[in-house]
Each structure stands twice: as C-alpha cells, then as structure tokens.
C-alpha cells in the first residue's frame, strides 16, 4: 500500500511562505530582499575597513592621503562616506590608538559594520578614557609602559578608525591576503593585527 508522506512544513518552508505572501500583497518583493542582503553581506562590515588598511599598508602615498583626509581617501576605493567626518589614526611602535564613544555609541559603521555590544557598554565607554591600559589588558592586549596609548572619542560628527601596525612577516602577502588579517577589534584598537601562523 503506497503511503503518501505528509512532510511537516519546515522553518525554511515557513520563511519561503512568508516571503511569497509578502510579495503577492505588494509589500516586499524578493528583489528587495536580495538587494538588502547583498548590501549587508558585501557593502558594509569590517571587510571595508580591512581593505582600507591593506591598501594603506601597501601604498604609502594613499596612506598619507588617508591620514590627512580619510573621507576623501576612502572615496578613491569606491567607499561612500556621507554624513559625518571620518578620521583614521595610525598606531605605531611608540603610540597605540584606541577608539570609543563616551557619550553614546558612535562608530565608523560604514567601514566596520555594526558596533559590538561591548563597545556600546557603559563599562567600556567610561573606563577606556580613564584606564585604557587596564581595558586593553582585559582584551588580552598588554602594552609596555614605553608605548603611549591615545584614546579617541567619536561623536556623531566625527568617527575614528585605527590604522593598525602592519605585523612583521607579512612582506610577501598581497593586499587581499593582508586585508584578511585585519579584524574589527584591530580597527577599534583593542587588538593588534597578527601575522598568519607559518604553515609548512
């Protein structure tokens, strides 16, 4: 006897159902969903900040322009930065830069994606300006006393991003490979960029 199987709808089926009904009612088209997801996945996020850093590491003239006027410089890479001023601060062997927003949670969202919850926490916002070394130590970043730590307070008009130091042992890497090393935490200044572990 042939048993016709009744498969219970899965959560995927329900999601597809919702999508098809919303499209039929003229509320949200599937194209709008595709475009939104494309934007979320490729046009925003730490990937953009990482690209900027990798390009600055490999092109000294671009780096100079970036440090002089970041909003204009990132436009050269096709990154649109309307609305507020972007400033990039460079970490060096003698100065380590860290970014925060003491008043709320201003963040260079366009380059780094959505701010992490710890960045928005009252603890980070208040403590990083008072005891930056202590806060960095909690992120497992221990800086010797000889290194100066500078904290930059973002506002709604002006957002900061860190240009981290390029790690040693990366001379052979191309821009894409360099960009892959740069984490969101390094762009905020609570981590350093690490060279890839040597394989073979």
């Amino acid at each position, binding site marked *: 006897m042939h048993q016709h199987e009744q498969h219970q709808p899965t*959560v995927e089926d329900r*999601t597809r159902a919702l999508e098809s009904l919303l499209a039929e009612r003229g509320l949200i088209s599937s194209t709008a969903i595709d475009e939104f997801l494309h934007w979320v996945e490729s046009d925003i996020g730490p990937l953009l900040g990482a690209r900027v850093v990798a390009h600055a590491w490999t092109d000294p003239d671009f780096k100079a322009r970036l440090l002089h006027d970041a909003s204009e410089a990132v436009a050269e890479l096709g990154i649109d930065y309307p609305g507020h001023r972007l400033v990039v601060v460079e970490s060096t062997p003698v100065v380590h830069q860290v970014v925060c927003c003491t008043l709320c949670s201003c963040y260079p969202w366009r380059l780094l994606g959505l701010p992490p919850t710890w960045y928005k926490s009252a603890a980070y916002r208040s403590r990083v300006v008072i005891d930056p070394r202590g806060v960095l130590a909690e992120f497992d970043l221990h800086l010797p006393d000889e290194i100066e730590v500078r904290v930059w307070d973002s506002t709604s008009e002006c957002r900061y991003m860190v240009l981290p130091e390029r790690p040693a042992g990366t001379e052979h890497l191309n821009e894409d490979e360099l960009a892959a090393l740069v984490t969101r935490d390094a762009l905020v200044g609570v981590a350093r960029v690490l060279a890839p572990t040597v394989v073979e």
Partner: protein
Amino acid sequence: MPEQSIDEVALEALEGALGEALAPPRRNGELVFDAPWQSRAFAMATLLQQQGHVRWNEFAARMSAGEDVDFYHRWLAALTDLLSADGVLSATEIEVRAADLAAEDNHGHTH
C-alpha cells in the same frame, strides 16, 4: 544598494531595541546566518520595519517572550505574530502556504 530603503539608523535602532541579550548573532562585526532562510527572515523584518509594519520595540518584546532556543526560529515567530496582530497576514495563511510549498518539494524530490 537599495534606494535608501535601509540605512544605518534602522539597523542601529534594531540593535538598540533588542539590547545585548537579543542581539542578532555576529562574528567579527558581521551578521552570521547559519542558513539562507535566516538571512531572508532578517531582511524581511528590517524591510517591514522601514515600511512601518514592524515596530522594533514590539518585535523585541516578542523576541524576549519567545520560547524557542534558536535565535532565528524565535525571530520568525516574532515576525509572524506581529504581522498577524496587525492584520497584515494571518498565521494560518502562512501555515497553509508553507504546507503547499513542502508538498511541492516532495513531489519533485530526487534525493
């Protein structure tokens, strides 16, 4: 990029409304979806919020009250509840359509 339909303000408002406990899963600042349906559910909620059919504070309340352990299962349920409460779509319509889609898949099943 969508014609100004989504922007920084909407996504930050979402995270503000949801708070730390209910923040969408992320890794290194990027949203993490374990399966495409999750990303589509996320997109639908955000686009509907832009249109005013979803209010983030009400969405957050439903997320908070949701019982499913899985974040995006709760997300879909919260979205369905809100749309149903607003009279946009009913939970029944969604179930019926979902059953149709499930049945269609089975007829074409070639695994």
